[in-house]
C-alpha cells in the first residue's frame, strides 16, 4: 500500500503539471474578461491591476466565501476554500470585505502588493465556516445538512471526566450516557437514536480530519447483570479538552457520507489548537474539583438483622441504624493542571501543551492519573504554497480500581445489603485469620456469591488498567494553482493497553478459583490504527454565476491489534487458580483446573495479530448558482477486508443535497437576516464484523471443535439511508437564530444471526435483514438577548425528539426479535413493532377487574416476560445561558430528558434483603396494601411485607414492580467567572471561576440517575445493578494567559 500511496501522490503531480500552464493562464484571462464585462467602459482607461490576497480570522484560519466588493460598483468576488482571492481593481478603489458573523472591513488599494486581511469576529453569531467531513472547511450556507459546532471553551467551562460528556445538552440530537463507573469511565454517545443490532451504535471520532480509535481498555463492557468487568475508559476519554479548538457534530448520514464505514452513526469532528502567527501566548489553567455522590439508596432503620448470621433484615425492631455508607464512601476529587505555549511567525507556528490530571473516585482506592503531551507544528514553504502540518499526542493513563458494576466484584453489594442495625465498621479490617494455605482469609460473615466484604473487594480484588497512547498525524498540502490543491495526510494512533483483575485467596466463589489460592486474569493489548489519504481539492476559478468546487481522493485505514489474554477468561470462567497463593505471575497460573478433566486446553488466548483494512476512493462536488442555490453530491466506494470471501468486496455510499439561501433569492423582510432551506439524502454503509465470511474451527484439548457457523458469501454491509430536511434562519441582524431539522433514517441489511435448517450442515448462519427506523426533529434556538459593553446575555435552547421503531427483524423466516441481554429478571430484546432498548421483565398477573392475582399467602403470580420499559427519552430539552456583567461571567446549563422508563435491579435486591425503606415502611404500616385476589377469588388487601418483598424482589424479581420514570431535569453545569482587569500587566488575561456540575436535580423520580449506564455497549441500557451513584462536583478554576 505504501507504494500505491506514493504512486497516487505522483499521479496528480504528473498530470497536473501538464495541465497547469493553461489553467493559470485561464485564471488570469478570465479575471480580465470579468473585469471588462463587469465594469464600465470608463474603467478600462485606467490600468486595472490584479490584486491577490487572503482573508483570515483572528486565529489565522482562512475564511472561505468572504464577499469582496469594490465600493461603489457592483463587481466583486469571493474567497476560495483557502481563503484566497483575486480581484481586478484600480488603485484608489476601496475593497469591502464582508462576512456573516464578522465585522465588515474596508481596505483601500494603495499598491499592487498582496493584500492579507484579517476579519474580526463580531462576537454575535455562529461561525460561518464549518469543518466538514475530511476536515474540509466550508461556508455554512453551502451545507445541505445539519451540523452543530461547539467551541473549546464551552467544553472546558466546567470540566467533565470524559471529554465527550461535556457535549451533553450543547448539541441537539445527541444522547450521552456516561458509564456509572465514575472517573476514567467510558461514555455511550448516540446520535439520532440506536440503529445497529449487531454492531456499534456510537459515532466515529475524527481529529483534524483523520479518524482515531475509540477503543476501550479493560475487560470490555458488561453485558449481563453479573457484570464484574473493570472499566478502562474509552478512546475519546483520553483526550485533553484544553487542546481542542472546537468540536463539530455531523449528526447524520449526509454529513458523514464521505467518511464511509463507521460514519453511519454520525461523526464527531475534533479540531485541535494550532499555534498562531505573531502572538506568543502562554496559557496556564488549573482546576480543582471535589465530587460527592449525588444521592444514595433509601434504607430502612426500623428493623434489624433477621437472626444472628442471617443476610437479611427482617428481624426485630431497632431504634436506629448506623450509617454504614458514610464509613465507606469518600469525597472524590480531580486536579487538572494544564500548560500551553502558542506562537509563531508567518512561516511556522507552534502549539505545545502539557496537561496532568489526577483524580480519585468516591469509592476508596479508585484513582486516575493521566498525562497529555501535545505538540502541533504548522509551517508554510514555497511562498506559502506548501503547507506542512504535524501534530503529536502522547498520552499515558492509569486507572486503578475502577468500580465494577453488577453483582460481582462490586463493593456496593456487600455494603448496601449489610443487615440493618449492624455496624459494618468491624469489617473494615477485611482480613481474617490465615487459612490452611497460610494466607489470610476474608473477614466477612456471609457466604454468598453476590456479596463480599466491600473493603476486601477494594484491597483484595483490585483491578488496574493502563494505557500508553501515541497519536501522530501529519499533512502536506500543496497549492498547485489558486484553484487546485493536493493534500496528503497520514496518521497513526497506537494504543498499548494493559489491564488485569486479581482475586486474592480468600475471595469467595464463584469469582475465586476452586483451589482456593486466588486467581488472576488480564490482558496486554496493542492496537494500531493507521490512516492515510490523498485528496485533490479544486474550485472553479473565475466569476461565473455557477461555481463548482469539490475534491477527489483515496484513503486507506488499517487496524491491527495484538492481544494476549491470560487467566480464567474467556475459556473457563473462574476455573484456573494460582499454584502458590497470591503470587500473581503468569508462571503461577494453573494450566488446568485442579482435579478436573480439562476440556479447555489453555488458559492463554490471543497472542496473534488481527487486522482489518478499509480502502476507499471518494469524491464530492458542490455546485452553486449565484450564491443562492447549492447542490452537493458525494460518492465514496469502500473496499473492506471484512467482506473478503464474498462476491463483492466493495460498496458505495452516495449522498446528495440541495440548499437554497432564500434571502439571496428573494427580498425578505428586513428582520430576516438569513434564511436557508435544505434537504439531503445519503446512504451510508457500515462494514460487517470481522471473520463472519470465513468461519474457522478452533482447537480444543481433544482435537478440534468444528465451527458450525456457515460461511457467508453474500454478506453485505449494513446500510443506513437518511433523508433530512431543515431550515436555518437568523433574524434581527443575527441576534436570533433558529435551526430546524427533520430526519428519517432506516438501517437495513443488518447482520443477524439465524439458525439454518440442521440438514444444511450448519448450526448458525447469518443473513442481512432488519429495518430499524429513527425519525425525529432537532431544533436549536439562539438569542443574544443583551449585547452591550458591560452586559451580555446569550441564550441557546436545544431540543430534540427521536422516535425509534423496529419495522422488521427477519420476517421472511418468522424471526421477529433479537436479544441484546438476558440476565435473570432483566431482558432486552429488539422486537418487531417495538423499539430499540425495550426492556422486558415479569409483571404481576391481573384479573379481569384489574386486581393483582396472588397466591393464598399473598405472593404474586407472575406473567411471562413482557415489555416493561424503554429508557430512551421522548424528547430532550437543554437551555444554555451565558451572562457577562463587566468582569463577571455566569454560565448555566439546564437540561432535561423527558419520558422513558428505567428499571432498578438494585432496588429489587434491597427489597428482597429487607434493607430498603420500602420494606421498613410497609412492615411498620402492617403490611403492603394491595388490591389483590387469591386463587379462590377472595380479596386480599394486605400482604405481609416480608412475603411481598421477598417474592417481588431479588435476582428473579418481578421487575415490572421496579419501573421508574426516566424523566430528569437537572442543573448540569454552572460556572461563575471573574476576569481580573489586567491592563499593563505581564498577564494578558486572568480568570477565576467557580464551577459546579450536576448540581441540582429539579426533577428525578428514579432511585438513581437514569442517565448513567451500566454498560456503554448495546445491552444493559436503563438499568441500575448496584451502579455507583452519580457524582455532584464543585470546582475552582484558574485560567491565566501570559
Amino acid at each position, binding site marked *: 500500500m505504501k507504494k500505491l500511496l506514493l504512486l*497516487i501522490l505522483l499521479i496528480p503531480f504528473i498530470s497536473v503539471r501538464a495541465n497547469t500552464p493553461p489553467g493559470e493562464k485561464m485564471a488570469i484571462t478570465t479575471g480580465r474578461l470579468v473585469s471588462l464585462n463587469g465594469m464600465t467602459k470608463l474603467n478600462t482607461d485606467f490600468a486595472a491591476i490584479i490584486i491577490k490576497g487572503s482573508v483570515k480570522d483572528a486565529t489565522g484560519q482562512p475564511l472561505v466565501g468572504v464577499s469582496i466588493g469594490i465600493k461603489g460598483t457592483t463587481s466583486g468576488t469571493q474567497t476560495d476554500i483557502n481563503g484566497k482571492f483575486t480581484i481586478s481593481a484600480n488603485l484608489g478603489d476601496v475593497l469591502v470585505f464582508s462576512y456573516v458573523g464578522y465585522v465588515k472591513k474596508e481596505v483601500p488599494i494603495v499598491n499592487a502588493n498582496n493584500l492579507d486581511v484579517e476579519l474580526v469576529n463580531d462576537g454575535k453569531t455562529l461561525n460561518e465556516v464549518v469543518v466538514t467531513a475530511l476536515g474540509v472547511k466550508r461556508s455554512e450556507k453551502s451545507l445541505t445538512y445539519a451540523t452543530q459546532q461547539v467551541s473549546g471553551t464551552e467544553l472546558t467551562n466546567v470540566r467533565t471526566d470524559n471529554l465527550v460528556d461535556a457535549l451533553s445538552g450543547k448539541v441537539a440530537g445527541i444522547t450521552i450516557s456516561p458509564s456509572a463507573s465514575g472517573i476514567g469511565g467510558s461514555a455511550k454517545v448516540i446520535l439520532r437514536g440506536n440503529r445497529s443490532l449487531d454492531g456499534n451504535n456510537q459515532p466515529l471520532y475524527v481529529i483534524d480530519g483523520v479518524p482515531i480509535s475509540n477503543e476501550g481498555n479493560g475487560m470490555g463492557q458488561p453485558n449481563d447483570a453479573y457484570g464484574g468487568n473493570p472499566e478502562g475508559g474509552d478512546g475519546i476519554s483520553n483526550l485533553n479538552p484544553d487542546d481542542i479548538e472546537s468540536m463539530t457534530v455531523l449528526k447524520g448520514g449526509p454529513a458523514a457520507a464521505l467518511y464511509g464505514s463507521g460514519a453511519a452513526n454520525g461523526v464527531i469532528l475534533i479540531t485541535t489548537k494550532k499555534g498562531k502567527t505573531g502572538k506568543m501566548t502562554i496559557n496556564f489553567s488549573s482546576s480543582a474539583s471535589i465530587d460527592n455522590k449525588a444521592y444514595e439508596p433509601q434504607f430502612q432503620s426500623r428493623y434489624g438483622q433477621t437472626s444472628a448470621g442471617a443476610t437479611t433484615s427482617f428481624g426485630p425492631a431497632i431504634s436506629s441504624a448506623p450509617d454504614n455508607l458514610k464509613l465507606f464512601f469518600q469525597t472524590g476529587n480531580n486536579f487538572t493542571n494544564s500548560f500551553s505555549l502558542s506562537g509563531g511567525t508567518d512561516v511556522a507556528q507552534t502549539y505545545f501543551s502539557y496537561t496532568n490530571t489526577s483524580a480519585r473516585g468516591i469509592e476508596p482506592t479508585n484513582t486516575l492519573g493521566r498525562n497529555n503531551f501535545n505538540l502541533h507544528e504548522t509551517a508554510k514553504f514555497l511562498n506559502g504554497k506548501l503547507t506542512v502540518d504535524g501534530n503529536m499526542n502522547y498520552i499515558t493513563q492509569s486507572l486503578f480500581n475502577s468500580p465494577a458494576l453488577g453483582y460481582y466484584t462490586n463493593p456496593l453489594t456487600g455494603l448496601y445489603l449489610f443487615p440493618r442495625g449492624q455496624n459494618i465498621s468491624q469489617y473494615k479490617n477485611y482480613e481474617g485469620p490465615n487459612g490452611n494455605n497460610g494466607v489470610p482469609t476474608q473477614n466477612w460473615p456471609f457466604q454468598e456469591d453476590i456479596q463480599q466484604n466491600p473493603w476486601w473487594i477494594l484491597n483484595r480484588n483490585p483491578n488496574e488498567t493502563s494505557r500508553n497512547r501515541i497519536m501522530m498525524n501529519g499533512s502536506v498540502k500543496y497549492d498547485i494553482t489558486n484553484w487546485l490543491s493536493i493534500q496528503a495526510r497520514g496518521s497513526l494512533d497506537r494504543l498499548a493497553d494493559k489491564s488485569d483483575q486479581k482475586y486474592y485467596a480468600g475471595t469467595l466463589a464463584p469469582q475465586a478459583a476452586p483451589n482456593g489460592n486466588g486467581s488472576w486474569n488480564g490482558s496486554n493489548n496493542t492496537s494500531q490504527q493507521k490512516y492515510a489519504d490523498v485528496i485533490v481539492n479544486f474550485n*472553479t476559478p473565475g466569476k461565473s454565476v455557477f461555481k463548482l468546487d469539490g475534491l*477527489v481522493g483515496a484513503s486507506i485505514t488499517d487496524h491491527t491489534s495484538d492481544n494476549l489474554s491470560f487467566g480464567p477468561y474467556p475459556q473457563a470462567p473462574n476455573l484456573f487458580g494460582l499454584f502458590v497463593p497470591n503470587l500473581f505471575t503468569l508462571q503461577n497460573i494453573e494450566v488446568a483446573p485442579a482435579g478436573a*478433566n480439562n476440556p479447555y486446553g489453555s488458559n492463554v488466548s490471543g497472542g496473534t*495479530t488481527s487486522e482489518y483494512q478499509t480502502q476507499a476512493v471518494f469524491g464530492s462536488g458542490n455546485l452553486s448558482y449565484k450564491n443562492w442555490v447549492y447542490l452537493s453530491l458525494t460518492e465514496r466506494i469502500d473496499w473492506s477486508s471484512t467482506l473478503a470471501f464474498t462476491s463483492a468486496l466493495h460498496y458505495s455510499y452516495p449522498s446528495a443535497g440541495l440548499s437554497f439561501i432564500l434571502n439571496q433569492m428573494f427580498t425578505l423582510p428586513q428582520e430576516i437576516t438569513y434564511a436557508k432551506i435544505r434537504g439531503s439524502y445519503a446512504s451510508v454503509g457500515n462494514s460487517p464484523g470481522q471473520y463472519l465470511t*470465513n468461519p474457522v474451527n478452533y482447537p480444543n484439548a481433544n482435537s478440534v471443535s468444528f465451527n458450525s457457523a456457515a460461511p457467508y458469501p453474500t454478506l453485505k454491509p449494513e446500510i443506513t439511508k437518511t433523508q433530512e430536511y431543515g431550515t436555518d434562519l437568523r433574524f434581527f441582524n443575527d441576534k436570533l437564530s433558529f435551526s430546524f431539522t427533520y430526519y428519517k433514517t432506516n438501517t437495513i441489511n443488518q447482520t443477524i444471526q439465524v439458525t439454518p435448517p440442521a440438514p*444444511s450442515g450448519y448450526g448458525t448462519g447469518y443473513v442481512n435483514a432488519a429495518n430499524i427506523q429513527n425519525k425525529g426533529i432537532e431544533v436549536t434556538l439562539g438569542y443574544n438577548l443583551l449585547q452591550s459593553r458591560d452586559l451580555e446575555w446569550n441564550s441557546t435552547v436545544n431540543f430534540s425528539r427521536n422516535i425509534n421503531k423496529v419495522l422488521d427483524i427477519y420476517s421472511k423466516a418468522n424471526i421477529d426479535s433479537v436479544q441484546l441481554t438476558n440476565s435473570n429478571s432483566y431482558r432486552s430484546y429488539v422486537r418487531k413493532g417495538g423499539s430499540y432498548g425495550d426492556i422486558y421483565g415479569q409483571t404481576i398477573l391481573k384479573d379481569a377487574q384489574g386486581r393483582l392475582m396472588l397466591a393464598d399467602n399473598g405472593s404474586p403470580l407472575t406473567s411471562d416476560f413482557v415489555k416493561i420499559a424503554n429508557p430512551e427519552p421522548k424528547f430532550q430539552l437543554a437551555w444554555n445561558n451565558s451572562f457577562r456583567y463587566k468582569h463577571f461571567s455566569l454560565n448555566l446549563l439546564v437540561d432535561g430528558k423527558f419520558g422513558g422508563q428505567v428499571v432498578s435491579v438494585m432496588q429489587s435486591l434491597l427489597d428482597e434483603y429487607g434493607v430498603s425503606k420500602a420494606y421498613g415502611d410497609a412492615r411498620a404500616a402492617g403490611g403492603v396494601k394491595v388490591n389483590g385476589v387469591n386463587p379462590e377469588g377472595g380479596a386480599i388487601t394486605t400482604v405481609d411485607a416480608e412475603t411481598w418483598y421477598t417474592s417481588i424482589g431479588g435476582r428473579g424479581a418481578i421487575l415490572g414492580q421496579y419501573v421508574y420514570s426516566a424523566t430528569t431535569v437537572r442543573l448540569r453545569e454552572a460556572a461563575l467567572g471573574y476576569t481580573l482587569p489586567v491592563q499593563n500587566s505581564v498577564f494578558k488575561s486572568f480568570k477565576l471561576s467557580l464551577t459546579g456540575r450536576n448540581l441540582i436535580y429539579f426533577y428525578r423520580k428514579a432511585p438513581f440517575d437514569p442517565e448513567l449506564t451500566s454498560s456503554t455497549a448495546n445491552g444493559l441500557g436503563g438499568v441500575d445493578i448496584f451502579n455507583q451513584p452519580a457524582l455532584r462536583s464543585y470546582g475552582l478554576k484558574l485560567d491565566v494567559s501570559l
Partner: protein
Amino acid sequence: MKTKYKSTKYNSYCIAIICALILSGLTNCTKNFDKFNTDPTGIANKNLQIPTLFIPLEQEIMYSADDGYQVGQNLNADIYAGYACPPEFFGTSLNNMNYVLLDIWNPEAFNSIYTNLIGPIKNKLAATGVKASLPDFWAIALIVEAEAMDRVTDKFGPVPYSKVGTSLVSIPYDSQQSIYQQMFSQLDTATTTLNSYITAHPGQTPFANSDVVFGGDYTKWLKFANSLRFRLAMHLVKVDPATAQAQAEKAMAAPGGLMASASDNAAVAVAGQNDYWQITSSYTDNSMNASIGSYMVGYNDPRLPVYFLPVNTDPSQPGPLPAQYAGQYIGIRLGTDVHSKPLYSGFSVYNYNTTFPVTAKETIMTAAEVWFLKAEAALRGWAGAGDAQTDYQTGIQTSMDQYGVSGSAAAYMADGTSKPIAYVDPINAADNSPALSTITIKWDPLASNEVKLERIITQKWLAMFPEGQEAWTEFRRTGYPKLFPVVNNYSGGAISTQIQIRRLAYPLSEYATNGTAVQAGVVLLGGPDNGGTRLWWDINKGNF
C-alpha cells in the same frame, strides 16, 4: 468561454484518469483481505489436519459435540429397545416415556448429526480435497457417515441426505429407500478403496493417531464396513427381500471378511466422560428397563451382573428398596409414573463400576451381532451364511467372550428350560406383568423359522446391549424380543400401546426453517408425522 470549456473538460479527464488509476491500484491491494479476514487463532477449513478432524467426527456418532447422548439416544432408542428406563420424569410428566414425544429432546438425534457429523464431512472434510488425495481417509469418512445416517433414518424415516450442505434455506428430504441405496453405494466405494489400500500397503496405519475407533487398523474398518452392510441389508428383508439378500450375500462374500470375534468390535473412545457412566452415575438418570430384567433374570444370564447392579437396599443411599430385595435385579417398567427422584432411584442401574466406567469406550457394533445376522441369513437360506445353529451359538459365545464370562457360555446355550420371568414392581403393583414370551435359550433345530427367529433376535438383543438404536430397529422389524408395552400411553391414540412406537417425529425446527422440504418428507413418509407411523422397511407382515 471556449477556453474555459476546454480547460474544464481537460480537468475532468485528468480527474477521471486519476480516479481510474487509484481504482485499479486499490483493487490490486485487496489481495490481503482473505488473510485479514481469517481468524488466525483458529484453523481454516482448508487447513484442517485430518487427524484432528476425524476424532470429533467419530465421536459424534455418540452425539459428542454437545454431550447429547442422553436426549439423542438414551431417552428414545434405549428406552424403546427395552434396555433403559429413567427413574426420573425430568420435570415434565408427559414425555417420551409415556409416548408424548418431546421436541426439546428428540431433535438432538437429528440436528446434531447433521451439524456436527454429516455437515462437516460434506462441507469441511470434502473441502480439504481428501477424496482425491487420501482416498483411504475418505473411505473412513464414508463409513462413519453411513453408520451415523442409519441412526438418523431409522429413527425418523425420510430425511435429507443427498442434498445435505447444498443450501442454507431448503434442503430436500430423500426417501428412505434412496437413503439405503446411498449408504450401500458409499460402502461399495469405501470397501473397494480400503481393500486396494490394504493390498498395496499391508500393515500400514496412517490413520493411527486420529482414529478413536480402531486405532487406525484398516482391516478392522473393512470388516466393520462389510458388517454394517450386512446389518443394513437385513433391515430391508421385508420391504425389499431381493436387495436384502443381494447386499447380505455381498457382505458375507466380501474381501476382508466380517467382524468375527470380540476383538473386531467397533467402539468409540468418546470425548470426556463415558455417556453411560455420566447419565447413570453422575446424573442418576438411567436405570434398567423391566423388559431386559425379565429376560436376563429369567435366563440366569451370566452377563446380568456385568450389565447391571443389583437394587439398592442401603438406607443411606437415595430411594432404597426394602431389605427383602437385596441382591435382586429389578428394572423399571416404561411409562410408569416414576413421580420424582428418588422414588425409583433404588432400582437396578447400568453397572457403571466395572462395565461402564468413566473412561470406557462405547460400542457401536459387535461381532456377536454379525453372527446373529448370519444365523438369520442361514434361516433364510442365503448363500454364504453357513449353519444357523452354529452361527447362533457362536454369537452367544462371542458375546460371553466380550463380557469376560466365556466359561458360562456352554451351560447357558444348553439351557432349554429357563424363560423370561414376570415383572413385579415392588413400589407399584399396577406395573406388574406376566412374562410376554416363553422363548428359551437352547437352539431347537426342529422349531419353526418364526421360533428360531425369535430365539436369534432375543439373543442378539441381549448381546447388543447397551446399543439401543439397532436393538429398537430390530424390534420394530421382527417384533422380537417381546417387550413390555408402556404402562401409560398419553399419545392420544397416535401410537398404539401394543404395536408400540415406530419412529420419532421430525423436529419442529424443521417445520420452522425447512418447511417445504419437511412437508415433502412427510409425504414420502406416507403417514402422519408422529410416533405411530411405520417406516419404509417396517412392513406390517409376517417375518417369513
